[in-house]
């Protein structure tokens, strides 16, 4: 049972830091509240969709910005989608970068766009990492016989 307590503490700390450091916001709590015994994997499923969406969009963005004649409308459309899915799961920092990104699209500012792409890739990989750690801890906790309360 000691292991369970330890894992619970680790999970609580990790979750708290995610919120404290602004990686996640209240929307993530909403997702957790929608999870129950009949939908035990809801959060993981939704976050997985976010990972898939984001990876696809980041690839599309890189391609679009490499073009000789950049189609800023297309770039903006991708950023809009990325902003949407990050906001849907509460990935606050990723969502945050999308705002200046869209402004640079409107200004057709290639430098600004490229910078934002780097930033959003960075934020995405950070939050992905942290969420994967979160899910791993949850799995360990369940395997050890514990359960986790949703905030």
């Amino acid at each position, binding site marked *: 049972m000691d292991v369970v307590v330890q894992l619970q503490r680790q999970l609580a700390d990790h979750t708290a830091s995610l919120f404290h450091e602004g990686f996640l916001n209240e*929307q993530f709590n*909403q997702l957790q509240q929608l999870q129950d015994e009949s939908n035990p994997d809801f959060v993981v499923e939704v976050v997985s969709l976010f990972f898939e969406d984001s990876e696809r969009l980041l690839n599309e963005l890189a391609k679009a910005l490499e073009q000789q004649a950049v189609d800023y409308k297309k770039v903006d459309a991708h950023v*809009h989608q990325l902003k*949407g*899915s990050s906001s*849907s799961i509460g990935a606050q920092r990723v969502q945050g970068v999308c705002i200046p990104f869209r402004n640079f699209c409107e200004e057709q500012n290639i430098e600004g766009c490229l910078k934002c792409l780097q930033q959003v890739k960075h934020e995405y990989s950070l939050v992905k990492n942290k969420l994967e750690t979160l899910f791993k801890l949850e799995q360990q906790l369940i395997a050890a016989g514990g359960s986790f309360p949703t905030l």
Partner: protein
Amino acid sequence: KTIMGMAAEAQYHVLAVDDSLLDRKLIERLLKTSSYHVTAVDSGSKALEFLGLLEDEHNDALAPSDVDVNLIITDYCMPGMTGYDLLRKIKESKSLKDIPVVIMSSENIPSRINRCLEEGAEEFFLKPVQLSDVNKLKPHLLKGREKESEPSINKRKGMEECHSHDKTRTKYDGLEVV
């Protein structure tokens, strides 16, 4: 199922329209948590198809009581047909115009919101949609139900002449009201 539909409180059926798979999953869960029966589609044209209104057909083959949807909730920004376009098509359709429509959008643009409300949308939700938003749907659904029960009495004769409809439930609904 039809008999149970009469006796017990029938579930409300919501049609959700969103091109994002993630958002569809989210809205579906939100609606199901509130005990709604949900159908989720990824485009306006699929929505119209589901509602029995094909794009190139302008005459409504269906009577309002044939359509088994109590509320439509749609994203605004979608490729092809936007949520606004869908709203207009619904309001222009004799068979669909009384179904309450709610618009969702990630962008807080007052002129957009006003346009939708003026066109007949019941509510405009900012994304990400919350459980508290979904709780606001009940009164619109109840209002829709009331409207639905009136015309079905008159339309019953017309409906019986219609062929190829397995939706016998609506006929029983008409009887129930009488």
